[in-house]
């Protein structure tokens, strides 16, 4: 077996804990845990897949109206490419540069490109999971309406395998460049800033695409009339997405194979280029990257006094959580990136389409009843989702990793520790709510009542997700990781509260629809949601805290 294949297998085993799982199966030890986790994941995947399948159905049906049902694939492929490019950037940086096992691999007589490719394989597997959420529902929807032969299925499999590779190659190239140039002294800060700049540029690109489509009726008609007009317009900024769509739409024909060949060639060239560049740049950005210089300066009496001031046990635990989270770039980025991106993506259409007549009409509808109530509730829903997306509570035990021994060693009740973790997570939810609230106030110009209602309902609704998240992480913490990213991104505990909140929001949306249709007074609707969320959240909050002692006690390390 070649060294590269061995390295890939080693990395996959290490990243996904396959050896641990095999050991458990062999010993038949606590098998219910992975089984229950698998069931929860299947349920979670089902919820998301259902949502995407409805969307894909809609896209295929809409596309069929003007003879371009393949538009669903173009949009799915573009979405995969965008998500992989943005999220992949952080994942590759942490995997390539912050894995603990690199200190073992680097001194071995291995080629930099081999170590790099071994790590890249694990990131790629992760991205296939992301891609599946978009791709599989699209395949189901399209096949149901358009059918498909053997060539079609073969093409689908090849396209699915290829789609995440290209954006991942671009993200990896950006990461290699970024880590090569950034200064070691301020590496953490520069990494965060550099990554944010790249994300902003990517989203800016999205902005230009939307701006280009515009709402010129004649141009739109022309786009709809030609066979792949709309597909080419949407896909032209995303390399290969048009070829991939045509390969699927024309599967089995010569033109289909040609497009597949072009897409395959583009992906292959980008990967080969990446591997060649990694040979030169990978070690240059990696070696010595984790060395941190010391200032070695004696503290002034005032600093000494301030930094040894006594505080309460709760405050000490809270600040420990806060400092460790905010000072670990991977944790902080994972926690707050979504909160930053969400408002930007929502604002883009405002900039892209300008304040045309249609937009003014829409704004008027959003500022009057029932539109304004709906918008306030939607903002509350986004705040709730962002609260669970920041994963502060749902990974708070996992993030401690091997240092969890300190939490077990100190003479502090687990309840107090759980309270401090939830307080930290709640502050995180408040921070996550700031950008979207600012965007809401600035663009929609809502009434004071609506802003207060959106924020209060959103924050009280986030309590449930936080408490459940912490409970799950106390039950199955991922304490043995080699890369901090594993504690937050590859941790399924982080996903479950998100799906729970989605299910709660689904029910809430139905309730809101009924209440608004029945013309309930706005303040009563707000009060009902606030009471429902606050009461359920606080109950689960106290249950979680109450079981903390038992959970902590059960965690042997």
């Amino acid at each position: 077996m070649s060294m590269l294949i061995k390295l890939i297998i080693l990395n996959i085993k290490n990243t996904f804990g396959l050896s641990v799982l095999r050991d458990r199966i062999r010993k038949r030890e606590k098998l219910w845990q992975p089984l229950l986790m698998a069931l929860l994941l299947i349920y979670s995947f089902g919820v998301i897949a259902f949502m995407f399948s409805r969307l894909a159905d809609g896209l295929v049906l809409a596309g069929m109206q003007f003879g371009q049902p393949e538009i669903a694939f173009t949009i799915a492929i573009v979405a995969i490419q965008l998500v992989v490019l943005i999220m992949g950037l952080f994942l590759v940086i942490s995997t390539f540069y912050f894995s603990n096992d690199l200190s073992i691999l680097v001194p071995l007589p291995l080629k930099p490109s081999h170590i790099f490719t071994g790590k890249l394989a694990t990131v790629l597997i992760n991205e296939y999971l992301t891609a599946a959420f978009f791709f599989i529902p699209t395949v189901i929807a399209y096949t149901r309406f358009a059918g498909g032969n053997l060539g079609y299925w073969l093409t689908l499999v090849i396209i699915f395998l290829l789609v995440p590779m290209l954006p991942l190659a671009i993200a990896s190239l950006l990461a290699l460049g970024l880590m090569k140039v950034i200064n070691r002294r301020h590496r953490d800060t520069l990494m965060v800033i550099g990554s944010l700049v790249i994300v902003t540029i990517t989203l800016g690109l999205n902005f230009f695409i939307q701006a280009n489509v515009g709402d010129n009726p004649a141009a739109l008609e022309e786009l709809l009339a030609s066979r792949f007009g709309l597909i080419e317009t949407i896909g032209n900024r995303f390399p290969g997405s048009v070829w991939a769509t045509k390969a699927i739409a024309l599967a089995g024909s010569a033109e289909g194979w040609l497009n597949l060949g072009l897409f395959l060639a583009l992906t292959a060239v980008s990967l080969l280029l990446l591997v060649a560049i990694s040979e030169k740049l990978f070690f240059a950005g990696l070696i010595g990257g984790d060395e941190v210089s010391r200032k070695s300066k004696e503290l002034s009496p005032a600093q000494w006094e301030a930094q040894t001031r006594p505080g309460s046990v709760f405050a000490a635990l809270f600040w420990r959580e806060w400092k460790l989270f905010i000072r670990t770039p991977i944790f902080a980025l994972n926690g707050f990136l979504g909160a930053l991106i969400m408002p930007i993506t929502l604002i883009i259409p405002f900039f892209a389409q300008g304040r045309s007549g249609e937009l003014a009409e829409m704004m008027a509808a959003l500022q009057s009843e029932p539109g304004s109530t709906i918008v306030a509730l939607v903002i509350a829903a986004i705040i709730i989702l962002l609260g669970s997306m920041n994963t502060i509570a749902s990974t708070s035990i996992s993030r401690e990793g091997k240092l969890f021994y300190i939490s077990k060693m100190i003479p502090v009740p687990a309840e107090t520790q759980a309270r401090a973790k939830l307080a930290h997570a709640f502050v995180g939810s408040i921070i996550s709510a700031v950008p979207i609230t600012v965007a809401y106030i600035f663009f929609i110009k809502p009434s004071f009542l609506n802003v207060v209602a959106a924020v209060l309902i959103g924050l009280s609704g986030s309590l449930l997700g936080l408490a459940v998240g912490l409970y799950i992480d106390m039950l199955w913490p991922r304490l043995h990781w080699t890369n901090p990213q594993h504690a937050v991104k590859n941790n399924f505990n982080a996903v479950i509260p998100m799906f729970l909140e989605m299910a709660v929001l689904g029910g809430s949306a139905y309730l809101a629809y009924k209440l608004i249709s029945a013309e309930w007074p706005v303040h009563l609707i707000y009060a009902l949601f606030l009471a429902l969320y606050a009461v359920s959240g606080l109950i689960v909050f106290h249950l979680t805290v109450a079981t903390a002692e038992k959970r902590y006690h059960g965690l042997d390390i």
Partner: protein
Amino acid sequence: MLVFDQVSKSYKKGAVKAVDDLSLEVKPGEIFGFLGPNGAGKTTTIKMAVGLLRADAGRITISGYDIAQEPLKAKACIGYVPDNPDLYERLTGLEYLNFIADVYQVPADVRRRRISHMLEMFELTNAVGDLIQSYSHGMQQKLALTGAWLHDPDVLILDEPMVGLDPRSAHLFKDLMREHCDRGKTVFFSTHVLEVAEKLCDRIGIIKKGKLIACGSMDELRDLAKSQESLENIFLELTEQ
């Protein structure tokens, strides 16, 4: 002060006995050295004593508190340093020490005095404002020892405390242990450095495959073994039987 009463711990559903019916009492004012080959059960014993692992059977008490029944009271009496001094890398040294002082509720003047004394002794005063990430292994070990000492615990439980210490720091640290026990406190530590155990410990316990095979002062161990020479010879003789 530290009592193990018929303590057992096994892994793999009882297939591997890590600690087997261990009974042992470490008295106030005593430095107790815990020796044994790799994998003998030293770290498992220590982890059970500080509440990181649950014993399958038996009872461990610290200053009269059962670690399983009254864990908070027992933990308040312990200062612990693990075999690998992993600390919060993203905190500065002083932030870590102040965190420990806060959770053990050490009064302001006491914490300042102790931190200052220990940092000076370990020559860490200029580094304490830097992130722990920037510390060498030895510096982290010194910081972990400082943290364990901050609340003046009744029982210090240390897993391989000498690893990473430079000769000067090791010497000062041994003096500190002796001074701690002279005040009626207890030190229980594991080590592979037999010379240190021989010179420093009031009593020594040797564990092999989870069983305590020998326990006593150097003189008592000499009587137990045929060898009348160094602890190294006694250790080799007892563990190879």
